């Protein structure tokens, strides 16, 4: 099924989730907890939620009736913000989730409602874990399981929180208990929802086991994949195809949302597993299964790009991946490597954020920092707190401290022959950043340099700009050189460095030519 990006397919939480018909506890409503999903540990980026989708989810969170719906919506929003590398906004969502959970805990305590209290404690644990408050998260999760120790959903939340805190053994231990509780629940008779929850618990356990290097995790993933293809889920699969639902969130509450999240993440994790073992075809099959269900899954597309044997195919997958999520740090890194390999197709500046990010990366690679900053500006205006964009912007800013200090600044010479790219860039960054010291300036004023220069086409026989060792330069004013043909492009020039300027949107050295001759 090809999927079109559209906002209408956002998860819609039911006002009330079904009661557990077999709960036999007196005086409490049945425990209903939406199991929360572990995000994949590496290369786990999902399709970036658009601003429209985020706003819709925020509206849903505001409108949501009931604690479960509101708190899971906030956690989902926090995770989506985190996936967009908007750490400050993500933190605000988790703080809101924490406050909701605290209020619910207090209310449940007042009502002496143990089931509600346990659920509220478990969500507090999730929020605290995502805020990095590990010991508090542990304490409140212990509170959650104390009186509701046979509720699989509470243990699932416990496991997720510990996973987030890097407490692998605790995460595995809690996941084992949640699986045991869910298996007990589904042993005699199981609804579709029960089976989905069991598989979610299995996934949490598989994730923990795989991270711990335990083979049992892979078998669990295969069990999940087989279960999802079983007849029990056939009506749900058909319904999904009719609705074209595809939104994958961290805390799914609908059956279709749970199925999609499970399908996506179990196949992705199996793909990772096969990829790590060098089983390329099996890995490709798993990633392709994800893309077949959802064509704009960035992590699967990026994985297919990694496994592609053909450069054009790799280029296409990376473009599709960055179009789906331009802010996925791992994919950005992959694309940078791809650009460095020389196989990237030229990026055009259009309205899509993915193409702008690709263009900026290509401009940075070409040392067109000024242009890259201009390309990034509208993206930064739209996403001012995005960590990936901030990182790209930083790299699009020449900084002298990132480069070794040129030898000729410490050991002055009358004529410096063939300064290196690094030395020329360091001088350019000192000028561009207004960071040049008076004594260095004086040294440069006294020094002459000799370099091979590649000139752009001369205008009317006048030479004006080009590059030396790839570093852009521009003359103070266009010049003609005696004995040099106007058609010549490669000259050896002797010059003084005056400062920094711009040449075709790139930071460039401003130089005064003293003489030139055609290179041999």
């Amino acid at each position: 099924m090809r999927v079109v990006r559209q906002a209408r397919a956002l998860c819609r939480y039911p006002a009330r989730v079904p009661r557990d018909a077999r709960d036999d506890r007196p005086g409490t409503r049945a425990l209903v907890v939406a199991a929360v999903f572990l995000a994949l540990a590496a290369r786990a980026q999902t399709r970036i939620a658009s601003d429209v989708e985020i706003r819709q989810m925020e509206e849903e969170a505001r409108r949501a009736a009931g604690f479960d719906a509101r708190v899971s919506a906030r956690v989902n929003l926090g995770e989506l913000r985190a996936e967009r590398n908007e750490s400050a906004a993500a933190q605000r969502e988790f703080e809101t989730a924490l406050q909701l959970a605290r209020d619910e805990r207090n209310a449940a305590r007042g009502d002496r409602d143990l089931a509600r209290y346990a659920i509220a404690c478990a969500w507090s644990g999730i929020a605290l874990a995502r805020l990095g408050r590990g010991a508090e998260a542990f304490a409140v999760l212990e509170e959650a399981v104390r009186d509701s120790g046979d509720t699989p959903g509470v243990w699932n939340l416990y496991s997720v929180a510990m996973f987030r805190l890097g407490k692998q053994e605790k995460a595995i231990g809690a996941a084992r208990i949640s699986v045991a509780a869910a298996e007990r629940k589904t042993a005699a008779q199981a609804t579709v929802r029960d089976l989905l929850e069991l598989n979610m618990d299995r996934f949490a356990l598989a994730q923990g086991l795989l991270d711990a290097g335990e083979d049992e995790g892979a078998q669990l993933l295969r069990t999940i994949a087989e279960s999802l293809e079983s007849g029990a889920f056939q009506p749900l699969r058909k319904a999904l195809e009719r609705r074209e639902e595809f939104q994958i969130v961290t805390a799914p509450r609908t059956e279709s949302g749970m199925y999609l999240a499970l399908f996506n993440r179990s196949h992705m994790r199996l793909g990772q597993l096969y990829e790590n073992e060098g089983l390329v075809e099996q890995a490709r099959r798993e990633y392709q299964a994800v893309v077949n269900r959802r064509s704009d899954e960035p992590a699967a597309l990026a994985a297919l790009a990694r496994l592609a044997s053909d450069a054009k195919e790799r280029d296409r997958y990376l473009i599709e991946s960055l179009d789906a999520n331009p802010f996925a740090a791992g994919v950005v890194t992959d694309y940078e490597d791809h650009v460095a390999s020389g196989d990237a197709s030229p990026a055009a500046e259009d309205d899509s954020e993915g193409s702008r990010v690709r263009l900026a990366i290509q401009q940075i690679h070409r040392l067109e920092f000024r242009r890259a900053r201009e390309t990034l500006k509208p993206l930064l205006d739209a996403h001012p707190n995005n960590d990936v964009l901030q990182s790209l912007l930083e790299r699009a800013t020449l900084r002298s401290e990132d480069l070794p200090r040129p030898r000729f600044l410490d050991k002055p010479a009358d004529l410096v022959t063939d300064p290196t790219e690094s030395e020329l860039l360091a001088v350019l960054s000192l000028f561009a950043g207004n960071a040049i010291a008076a004594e260095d300036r004086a040294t440069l004023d006294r020094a002459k340099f000799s370099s091979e220069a590649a000139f752009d086409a001369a205008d009317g026989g006048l030479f004006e700009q080009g590059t030396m060792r790839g570093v852009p330069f521009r003359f103070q004013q266009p010049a003609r050189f005696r004995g040099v043909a106007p058609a010549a492009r490669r000259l050896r020039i002797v010059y003084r460095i005056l400062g920094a300027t711009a040449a075709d949107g790139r930071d460039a050295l401003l130089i005064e030519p003293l003489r030139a001759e055609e290179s041999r």
Partner: protein
Amino acid sequence: MIRGAVLLAALVSMVWSPAARTIVVAHDGRIEAFDAAGEKRLWSVDGVASPSAGVASRDGKTIAILDGFNDRVAVVSVADGAAVTHETPGTPVAAAFFGRDVWVVVRDRSRAVRITPDGQQTEVALALDPALIAVSHRFVYVYSRISGLLQEIDPQSMRVTRTAAAGTAGSGFEVELPKPGDRHGAIGFLSRPAYGKLVVIDLEPMDVRERNGGAPADPGAAPSVTVDDARFAWDAKSGRPVKVKG
């Protein structure tokens, strides 16, 4: 009546040693002892980072403070605060003393770990989700919550000798020792507040009976100890245990 360790929600653990008439409080990386009025600080030593539960030995001379988040247990002399911290092979969730040995329930590993005074650790495998522990004169009993099993461990052979089904989701477990003249042996009481049940286990024949009621639950109650019918809770502001109502 010998109480097993009770899990606490806050990062504070309080233990009352009746024999020493001392309140011991673990908080903020310290372990401190106070007199029975909570007014005089007797000693203060380095403790564990995130105390999660505590228990006193039967003779009141030693306490154990668990740090469930960091997998540690501190064994402390009530007389002078001399403390030894042990690492545990997983999350310690409950503890009890059997003689001078401290028995720690390690949930992630489904194990009970016996730690002797010289620091030797010996493990016994248990059912999934061991959560509560208490002792009689002869045996150590561990209740596993998700499997609903009560397992009897012989501390001499370090083996599980008997197992009884007691019901899932128990949250409190105590063993009442027989008094002189009693015709019965030790009795175990397991509260299952989520089901409104109290399970009574005659530990000699391992006979399990269930009755309605269960222990009243007060979720979210602050850590406290009961001293001569008065309840004391930790007051972070004044830095000492204070008497509270109720």
